[in-house]
């Protein structure tokens, strides 16, 4: 038994549970729960209205089923919609007041919340279940006028900004899960980069689900004003549990004239065991709008966890000459299922987008790329290049490619190509003849396959991503 546990630990080293007293709302969702969440967060009235409207619409909807994934129906009344460590109830004034157990959790995860923060050179907002535990480097950022804080704090301190931008990229009625999130979202990060400011350090949010039977519904909003730029990094883990947990987040990005936002994700939620038991349902709506001319939004994602991943980080290219990018590595093993990709909607003139997607499926997993490139009639000279490669490791996995091209302007130049292959015996034989063992050889080949994406990640993350893939592959191709 101990051996089995030790093995499980090796497979997913972030699978531990932190023993902190948790305050949870009762299971289920209704208007009272929505009101209670809003009240707990001391939100302004408009936000409560926003939540209630979304909730009323959500109640009339049925869950969508079009993705190429299978899972039993979710009982939305069997989830705790709010969970917070009890010690947070008295609202710590600084990091020093935070429960040491919590800080240790983030230390174990390698997230620098305390002293190490200065060395890391990254400002971190750490979210534990439904609340933000602490945000580092706020003072340095404040000097430059950058606002980086938890969403709840932003709702209290900067309601005018929240009111102006919230729900403008992903409206509450966008889809079923967006409506649910809009009604019950708990915490997340808010970033505001004022005119002309280049954010000097990478901003980062670390999401951790700890409590059982809870859903995590965070909300991230990033606004870059004219000429501003920011690089934002997101990481996620959760304990190993046998039940499935729902994570339905919304991320909204807005880039005004000449602004640029780079959003990188390394997602490593618990993906379930080899029999497909447990794991996170990662149903996330991520969308950016290049509002202004010459703005740029770039998504990079390394998807290595979650029992089910269902997300399409998208860019609406509204400003003239705006640029959208999507770089993705999605690795699935065991019984994981991923249906992920992007949407590039060209509206402004001379817009361009690039899509590079690398899917790796191992064991009995299922990995699908689904993407849309849409060129509207007014989007003269739109340019898109898409490349979606799949690699299959093992004979029981599945790799699918579902691109959609909808082109309504003759000046568009749109190219999509996709290939599917496996690691060839020739390649393996060659590397082994040079003295590499089969695991090293495979890891080398996989890294080569994903290089186009890894090189777009911030350096530390790129290293982490490579390690993560190696660790995941270890069990699949050993």
């Amino acid at each position: 038994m101990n051996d089995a546990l030790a093995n499980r630990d090796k497979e997913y080293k972030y699978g531990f549970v932190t023993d902190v007293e948790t305050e949870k709302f009762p299971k289920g969702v209704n208007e009272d729960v929505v009101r209670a969440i809003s009240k707990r967060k001391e939100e302004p009235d408009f936000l409560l209205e926003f939540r209630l409207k979304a909730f009323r619409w959500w109640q009339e909807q049925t869950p969508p089923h079009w993705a190429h994934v299978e899972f039993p129906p979710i009982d939305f009344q069997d989830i705790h919609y709010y969970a917070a460590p009890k010690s947070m109830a008295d609202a710590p004034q600084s990091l020093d007041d935070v429960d040491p157990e919590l800080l240790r959790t983030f230390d174990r995860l390698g997230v620098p919340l305390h002293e190490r923060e200065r060395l890391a050179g990254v400002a971190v907002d750490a979210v534990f279940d439904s609340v933000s535990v602490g945000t580092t480097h706020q003072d340095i950022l404040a000097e430059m006028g950058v606002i980086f804080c938890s969403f709840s704090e932003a709702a209290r301190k900067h309601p005018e900004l929240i009111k102006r931008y919230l729900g403008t990229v992903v409206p509450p009625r966008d889809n079923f899960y967006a409506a649910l999130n809009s009604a019950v979202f708990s915490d997340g990060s808010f970033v505001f980069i004022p005119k002309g400011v280049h954010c000097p350090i990478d901003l980062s949010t670390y999401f951790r689900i700890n409590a059982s039977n809870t859903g995590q519904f965070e909300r991230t909003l990033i606004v870059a004003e004219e000429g501003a730029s920011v690089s934002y990094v997101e990481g996620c883990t959760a304990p190993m549990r046998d039940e499935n947990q729902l994570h339905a987040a919304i991320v909204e990005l807005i880039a005004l004239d000449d602004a640029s936002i780079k959003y990188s994700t390394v997602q490593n939620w618990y993906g379930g065991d080899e029999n497909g038991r447990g794991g996170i349902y990662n149903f996330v709506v991520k969308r950016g709008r290049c509002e202004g001319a010459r703005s740029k939004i770039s998504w990079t994602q390394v998807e290595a966890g979650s029992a089910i991943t269902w997300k399409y980080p998208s860019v609406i290219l509204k400003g003239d000459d705006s640029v959208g990018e999507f770089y993705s590595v999605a690795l699935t093993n065991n019984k994981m299922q991923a249906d992920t990709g992007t949407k590039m909607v060209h509206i402004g003139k001379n817009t361009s987008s690039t899509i590079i997607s690398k899917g790796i499926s191992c064991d009995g997993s299922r990995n699908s790329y689904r993407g849309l490139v849409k060129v509207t009639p007014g989007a003269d000279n739109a340019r898109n290049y898409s490349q979606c490669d799949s690699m299959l490791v093992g004979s029981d996995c599945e790799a699918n490619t579902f691109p959609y091209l909808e082109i309504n302007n003759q000046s568009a130049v749109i190219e999509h190509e996709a290939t599917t292959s496996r690691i060839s015996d020739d390649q393996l034989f060659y590397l082994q003849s040079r003295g590499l063992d089969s695991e090293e050889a495979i890891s080398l080949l996989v890294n080569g396959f994903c290089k186009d994406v890894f090189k777009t990640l911030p350096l530390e993350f790129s290293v982490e991503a490579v390690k993560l893939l190696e660790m995941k592959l270890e069990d699949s191709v050993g």
Partner: protein
Amino acid sequence: MKRPRAITPDAHYADQLSAVLEAMAPCESAGQLAARQAAFDRFMEQGIPTRRVEAWKYTDVTRLAEEVFAPAAPAPLTAETVTGLPLYHPEDETVVFASGILQPGLSRHPEGSVLELHPLHTMPDPTAPVPIHDNPFVDLNHALWRDGALLRLPPSTTPAQRIHVLFVHATAATPTLSHPRLLIDLGEHATAEIAITHVTLGDKACFNNATLDITLQPGAHLELVYTQVLNQASTHLGTTTITQQRDSTLHAMDFSAGSALARHSLSVALAGEGASASLDGLYIVQGRQHVDAHTCIQHQQPNGSSRQLYKGILDDRATAAFSGLVRVHPGATGTDAQQMNRNLLLSNDALANSKPQLEISNDDVRCTHGATVGRLDDLELFYLASRGIDPTAARDMLSRGFAEEVLYRLPDTQRHADLHAILNRTFEKNDDTTT
């Protein structure tokens, strides 16, 4: 409230079923009549799909639920009319259908031909192969067909002539509806070249809902040319299902230039080891035409190969959709599949949709697909202009060149010339409107 996924068809479809059942009662077995009723029930149960159904995402056929069609009655067709049709060739072995009814008098069946032609009514229960796509129009066809034929080639035979199946659809003031049904069976190691052509007489609207089921026995080879050149008021829904056994080979040319709304769904099941299919498609649309080229290739057994090249030319306010699925089943190791869709937009109001899809459940495969949409290349136009060619001629030359890549894959020069002639007429019409 969300739009429904299907609409209940108008009552006239049920009236047509009663008429068909009554007319067929003397010549069909009780089993056949029951099969019609069952197919009709399935059609009513599914209804007419709306664009919420993934397979119909880019093609709106909901008006077919409300519009009232009269059953097509074969207009008197003379031999002169038939021989004057654009793709007719006197030396072909020709099978003529007028509005879905076989016309033995107008067909040409040379003495000593190896081709067997069986009218479908005389067949004991023509079993309907299960379509790969759930398609209510196939059920509608199986319920309401008035006539059809089974073309069979015995093993190891090769007909001396090309075979041409000509579907002539006469139009009348009231829109007419016909359900042509054709089955083709190539015996082991038989080889044939078969052309299927849909044309209209007159310029009024008609709706034809055709099914074509082809079986290639082991080692058979088929060269298929499917041409749809209906008038610009008509609707063509064609569903072609091909099953290929071991080591059989198929080359298909799928050409679509007519109809206000045309959709050809071509499904190929590589059901035997080592079977290979090569599909070429060309669709040319202008005005307010809409075309939907739908392909589905199922690799079910090892070592199969498939190749697809579909090209589209879109002008004016025309819209086109290509959706192609390559499905590689878990056991189909050694599969090699390629798929390419290219679209040329000649007008700023044209809309091209492309949905090339791969579903792969096996690691021993090589699959690639691609899609492009764009206009004529500025550099190429500049080059031709620099050689003294005026812009209109240069555009024409490059567009034709774009189409010719597909047409040149036809091994038969005669067929090539036929399609080339249609292409020319289309471009001439274009020139008239632009100059």
